[in-house]
């Protein structure tokens, strides 16, 4: 594939054999201009939040989007819903290009794609009751006649495992996990086809985390939802996703079927992530027998040239500093953006991975 593949239409070829993608994201770029210091007049600087991301998502499928903070995964999630307008690139949902829709059409389409946020409490308007919160999509999209709304709200509450009397309460009366249930209830109230889950469990306690993940799995089965599951935790992503995309500094560095990726991660960064996951087994002492990835994520204001990971990659060569790798297939539906993908997969620069064992 040509270096410009990330921006071109060819990106969808990756999953070319699968038909009827629910969501197609093509060469998505989101840049923010911020006011920087400047000589006499303000100089604008650009945050490269998302820099050419392409993927697609089939109905009922879960795509995990994993990466560290600032890699652009949340921005991607929001831009997919057109909560933010992309600087360039295309988002097609159910075959319609979102950029071509009128604001009214977009609003109408929003009932088909919903989002669940990381901070369960912050995502709920503290001044509204749970009932108001859940019935709002019903009202806005006029999905259910007014008389039936209450009934529907109770139904939804039941669906996410909350008692009916929760409807009259306010978010602050609930724990984080319960709030997340409310957030999910609100998201599914509009009967969406796609749910963007933006780190839905990362602020929850482990015992509660599992409850929410279970709920999400159940709902997917019952309602036939597609999930774009955003997380920084490979373990959680691994438990939820059919396919996983790894992002680094605004780009997808590796995307593959879940099992393929977990079995044999190619990109050194993916491997670094795997190696860093703490494993609840004293026998597996991650990072002790292998090297921990060094350094930190560079500033997204001036991403490094060439391969963006080269500053931290133990395998980096001259070519990595100069030439930006594009996503290349290394297997069935498995693409890696690394000049030395195959070598890296074998070299295992970060030693033992969490999956090993």
């Amino acid at each position: 594939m040509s270096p410009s593949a990330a921006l071109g239409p060819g990106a969808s070829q990756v999953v070319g054999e699968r038909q009827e993608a629910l969501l197609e994201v093509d060469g998505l770029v989101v840049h923010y201009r911020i006011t920087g210091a400047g000589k006499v007049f303000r100089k604008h600087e650009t945050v490269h939040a998302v820099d050419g991301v392409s993927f697609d998502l089939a109905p009922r499928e879960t795509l995990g989007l994993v990466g560290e903070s600032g890699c652009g995964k949340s921005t991607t999630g929001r831009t997919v819903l057109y909560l933010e307008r992309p600087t360039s690139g295309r988002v097609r949902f159910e075959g319609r290009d979102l950029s071509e829709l009128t604001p009214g059409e977009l609003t109408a389409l929003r009932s088909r794609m919903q989002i669940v946020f990381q901070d369960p409490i912050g995502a709920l308007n503290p001044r509204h009751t749970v009932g108001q919160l859940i019935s709002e999509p019903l009202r806005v999209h006029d999905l259910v006649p007014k008389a039936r709304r209450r009934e529907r709200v109770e139904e939804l509450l039941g669906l996410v495992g909350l008692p009916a009397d929760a409807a009259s309460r306010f978010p602050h009366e609930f724990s984080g996990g319960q709030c997340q249930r409310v957030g999910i209830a609100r998201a599914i109230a509009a009967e969406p086809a796609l749910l963007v889950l933006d780190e839905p469990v990362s602020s929850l306690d482990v015992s509660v985390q599992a409850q929410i993940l279970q709920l999400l799995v159940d709902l997917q089965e019952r309602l036939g939802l597609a999930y774009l599951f955003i997380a920084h935790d490979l373990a959680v992503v691994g438990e939820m996703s059919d396919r996983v995309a790894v992002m680094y500094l605004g780009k997808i560095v590796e995307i593959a079927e879940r099992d393929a990726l977990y079995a044999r991660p190619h990109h050194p960064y993916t491997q670094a992530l795997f190696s860093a996951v703490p494993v609840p087994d004293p026998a597996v002492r991650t990072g002790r027998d292998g090297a921990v990835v060094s350094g930190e994520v560079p500033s997204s204001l001036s991403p490094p040239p060439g391969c963006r990971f080269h500053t931290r990659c133990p395998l980096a060569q001259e070519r990595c500093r100069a030439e930006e790798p594009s996503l290349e297939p290394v297997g069935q539906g498995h693409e890696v953006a690394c000049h030395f993908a195959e070598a890296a997969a074998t070299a295992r620069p970060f030693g033992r991975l969490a999956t090993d064992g």
Partner: protein
Amino acid sequence: MLALRLQGCGPDQGPSDGRADVVLSYLLQRVLSLLFVLLLATVGIFAMMHSVPGGPFAFSQGDLTKVAMHNIMAKYGLTEPVWRQYLNWIWQLMHGYLGIPFEEPTMTVNHLIATAWPITLIIGGLTIAVSYSLGLLLGVVAAIRHNTWVDSLITAVVSTAGIALPNYVIGFLLIEVFAVKLGWLPVGGWGSPADVVLPVIAFSLYPLALMERYTRASTLEVTYADYVRMGRARGLSGRRILFNYVLRTSLIPLITIMGPNIPNILTGSIFIEATFGLPGLGSYFTNASLHRDYPLIMALVLIVAALWGACYIISDLAYAIVDPRVRLEGLSR
């Protein structure tokens, strides 16, 4: 020197090139925008003043005949169309000349301000010194003794004195007690050092109360910050924690809160000046307005506006200097 201490921006927010340039560009933008607004303000005030019934000589000159009135108006250039007068004013202004006050035509406005403003500045400067320092002290003490009787006492007394009574009422009471009944201090007027005492007290109470409240709130907020706890966890002494950790950060926001109050104080209070018979800038404000003294009003507006603009810019810069986290953001706020 000033510019060099400015920090650029956060770790992931790119280069912090040209710190002096940041200040320069910030200043340029602010000043330009302020000038623009100032121009609007002067046009507005000029137009409004001329639409008010009665001219500058309507009352004070008694039963003037039409002809005599015309003579006077002509003498001060008031027979010209208003737009023309405005342009004349702007032209004079650009030469640093503010015209002749109709109320004191034996002086220029520049001279009048040069004689009246120092009085206001002395009162205002002392007021700022007294109220800000005392308010700060009381606020900090109240915050340290949070939830104790000391806190309640300070807050109650300061609020009552500073917030519950108009300052001229306090002025009356002070005069009644300290000048008339006790005879310790002059009733009013200007000349001896004793003349400043009562006006400064009366004028200080409100800003003092403000300062106390803001300081207390801000200090309390910082008292529970993570880094203060960490300072304690490193075994630092209470005094060090108070000065280097709590106050050093808690007082920073006060710059932006109390800074813009400074022009109000430095341009004087009509109430204080009238109560104590001080021939300061504030009293000219009322007289000029009541007597339609256009050049004087325009000059006073200019002073207030310019001072206000300057205080805003300075407090912004000061904020950026004392708080390394802050970036100058051009035209926001």
